[in-house]
């Protein structure tokens, strides 16, 4: 038998109260990614087969640099939110779950930095 009051036992056991921003940002990035994905499939994908000089000139154009930066960052954010839910759904060992959730955050952070630096470098001709 616990000496704690029913109220004390119930406190802190509610929801984490931070689910809505996760859900909402998944949708916000989805709305941004829908038109950008069509642009990516039609305009960027053919450039993957281009040679170095052509690809570099193409990506250095301001609009292309802006759109691909927006696409890459939105993809990384959207993917991070999605993979987080998959991990939470299927990984039931708490320490592995926390380790994976931390890892994907670090990977997403580094991927966003690397992509941003690379695009800026190409766009300003460094």
């Amino acid at each position: 038998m616990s000496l704690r009051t029913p109220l004390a036992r119930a406190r802190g056991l509610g929801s984490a109260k931070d689910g809505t921003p996760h859900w909402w940002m998944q949708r916000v990035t989805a709305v941004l990614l829908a038109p950008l994905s069509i642009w990516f499939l039609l305009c960027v994908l053919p450039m993957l087969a281009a040679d170095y000089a052509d690809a570099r000139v193409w990506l250095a154009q301001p609009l292309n640099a802006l759109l691909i930066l927006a696409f890459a960052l939105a993809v990384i954010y959207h993917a991070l939110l999605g993979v987080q839910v998959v991990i939470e759904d299927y990984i039931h060992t708490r320490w592995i779950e926390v380790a994976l959730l931390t890892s994907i955050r670090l990977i997403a952070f580094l991927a966003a930095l690397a992509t941003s630096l690379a695009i800026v470098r190409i766009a300003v001709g460094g």
Partner: protein
Amino acid sequence: MSVQRPLSPHLQVYQLQLTSTLSILHRITGLWLCLGSIALICWIVSLAAGPEAYAGFDDFAHGWGGKVVVVVSVFALCYHLGNGIRHLFWDAGRGFDLKTTYASGYAVVAFAIIATGGILFLLGGAR
């Protein structure tokens, strides 16, 4: 697992239907697109790093591994895009009745197959 309480029916007691198949396919294509995204980031970073690095990416992209990543990612993106828009309509509270759910499901599958074919056809012409 030594849970003593009654458990809800597990996945295997349900008959696989179009709706559930498309639902899990949304998640699988999403996970696969992580791989496609990594390839895209490698393309951008190698392009910034210089001609040698870019040649390394090119070798990978034109090998069979690269081709599999590209072809499957194109399908995954077409499907995830189509089904994602279907999800956005659901989020807005529309298209929830069974008839519409099935119709939009078939429409998404048709869109994904046709769009994948069209884009791969265009890509073949670009090379």
